[in-house]
């Protein structure tokens, strides 16, 4: 049973437009949610996080929204740039700071 799901394996967006990546979870015990970005042949790198008691966190072009009643979070990238093309993973953080990752969404930003 996957506790964190990213139902869209891929997303294609035009440069300058908004990218919206979605994530659903089933575990109500997650304290934080984190987004990671991964380029080919590299390890994931941290992008942004949100506490479970917040509904929005913003960092430059990146904003994460959390809807606890729907058990849904989303990452908005505005404006999207070609360098944002990567695989994005959402993760829930539970007890002991353990992360449970979704399957990832491949974002392609076209120039």
């Amino acid at each position, binding site marked *: 049973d996957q506790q964190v799901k990213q139902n869209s394996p891929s997303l294609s967006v035009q440069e300058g437009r908004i990218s919206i990546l979605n994530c659903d979870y089933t575990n109500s015990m997650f304290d934080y949610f984190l987004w990671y970005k991964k380029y080919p042949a590299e390890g994931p790198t941290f992008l942004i996080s949100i506490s479970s008691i917040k509904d929005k966190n913003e960092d430059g072009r990146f904003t994460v929204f959390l809807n606890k009643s729907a058990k849904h979070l989303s990452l908005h990238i505005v404006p999207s740039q070609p360098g944002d093309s990567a695989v994005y993973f959402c993760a829930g953080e539970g007890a002991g700071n353990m992360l449970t*990752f979704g399957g990832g969404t491949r974002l392609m930003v076209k120039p």
Partner: protein
Amino acid sequence: NAGVTQTPKFRVLKTGQSMTLLCAQDMNHEYMYWYRQDPGMGLRLIHYSVGEGTTAKGEVPDGYNVSRLKKQNFLLGLESAAPSQTSVYFCASSLSVEGTGGYEQFFGPGTRLTVL
């Protein structure tokens, strides 16, 4: 400051062979982790350590062993490799403070392992 490094970058094993993957971090982090990444399944936690001399099982520990003899190193061992262990392995480390969360994990570049 190298961050998290992993050795080797690539390896091909035959079924039944053994090997050890080495992870090193120079950030003085207490927590270290081993993940495997398979297509469409994200990263799954194999084992983790909350400090020198401690280890614990993650989501998919079977077939793997780990050791944390020094704070900066975390070793992942495969005693008898199987084709199902073909994967990309990532090590990570994090700073953790009791009772808080949201600290990012820093990942190494990965080890691509193929078991024939």
